[in-house]
């Protein structure tokens, strides 16, 4: 397949992860356990949605893709390539925090791997967001530590959240059929390599927090091939509602 087509698919899944998780994070607005967390989840939502827009713009401007608004709001569910982790409802704060920890470390290793990408627009975006992502992982790490040291009950909740999130998070790294070619062309190193780097990034934090890292037994795959949980469609409906009412509106 043409390299540009493969890059398009890579950028689509990255953008969809950020768009969907960004919308999930924004659902914490007004519901955070403390004011700071309310603000933090709103800020991180804003960052993620901003990154998805930057990715969709690359598709549009560099790879002949459609208008970013159309792309974000007018696609059918099966054309979305987000992983299941991002689709899950916000659930409890423990779940959302653990998802944020696992996802943002994955996002960080992904962008870091693109600092040298042969595809210049991705390289430029990676240089732009790496500094920002540091604050996301700083935030996640600090809260994981704090809650794991806040007594037995709190610690057990975090371990449960990790157990519930881990296989879903492994699904971020569902291999694509053409990862080898993308790696050979130095676009990015491929999903399995990122998975290894991700484990290296999260393991020391989990150890410090005395959490037991589960094994990758049944990673939740399917999202990258357009197979989704029942939670995605209602979210897409909600996101698209305003847009569908008036598709010509400018934002």
């Amino acid at each position, binding site marked *: 397949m043409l390299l540009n087509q493969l890059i398009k698919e890579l950028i689509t899944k990255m953008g969809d992860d950020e768009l969907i998780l960004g919308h999930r994070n924004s659902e914490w607005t007004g519901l955070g356990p403390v004011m*700071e*967390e309310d*603000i*933090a989840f709103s*800020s*991180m939502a*804003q*960052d*993620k*949605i*901003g*990154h998805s*827009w*930057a990715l969709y713009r690359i598709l549009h401007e560099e790879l002949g893709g459609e208008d970013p608004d159309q792309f974000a709001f007018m696609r059918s569910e099966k054309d979305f390539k987000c992983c299941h982790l991002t689709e899950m409802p916000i659930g409890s704060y423990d779940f959302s925090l653990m998802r944020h920890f696992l996802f943002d470390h994955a996002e960080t290793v992904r962008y870091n791997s693109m600092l040298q990408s042969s595809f210049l*627009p991705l390289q*430029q*975006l990676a*240089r*732009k*967001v*790496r*500094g*920002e992502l*540091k*604050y996301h992982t*700083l*935030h996640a790490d600090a809260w994981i530590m704090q809650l794991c040291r806040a007594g037995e009950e709190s610690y057990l909740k975090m371990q449960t959240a990790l157990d519930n999130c881990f296989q879903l998070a492994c699904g971020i790294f569902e291999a694509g059929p053409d990862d080898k070619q993308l790696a050979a062309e130095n676009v990015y190193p491929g999903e399995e390599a990122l998975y290894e780097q991700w484990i290296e990034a999260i393991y020391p934090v989990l150890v410090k927090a005395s959490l037991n890292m589960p094994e990758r037994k049944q990673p939740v795959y399917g999202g990258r091939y357009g197979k989704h949980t029942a939670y995605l469609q209602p979210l897409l409906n909600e996101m698209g509602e305003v847009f569908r009412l008036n598709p010509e509106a400018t934002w």
Partner: protein
Amino acid sequence: MNSTITIQAVYTSLEQVMDPEIPVLNVLELGMITDVIMEEEYLLIKMIPTFAACPAVEVIKTNIRTTLEKDLQIPVKVSVDKEVQWNSNRLTAIAKEKLQNFGIAAPQKHEGDVEIDMIMHTNCPHCGSENTYLRSPFGSTLCRAIHFCKHCGMMFEQFKPLS
């Protein structure tokens, strides 16, 4: 192109374009302007946003264009420069002083990477004490963090360092 317009006049005009989120700082002090080019038909200003998802970018671009067109009476185009990435070392010394006076701690200078220890003890803009801690890396806007000063007992915001 009108040859009577000097680069100096362009910069003087740019000094009038303030950041909507921190109204004491102009776009030059923030280090957002990367190039000024006199094209045949118009004046081109290249700029970079501070944070990738900064919601104020479009407003700032429009403000640059309208301010310059009004001051210089020539057509102006503003584009985002993708080859340069903003980092907090681009803030001028004057900008940092203005931030302090505005009650927002300035970002520490970094050597290409922001170390977490660096922001853990940020000097309080009210009393100058180092006896502070980071309360949250996210503040009222994307570019700010929230700290607490143990010396004067006040919360304060910081324009956070970004690599």
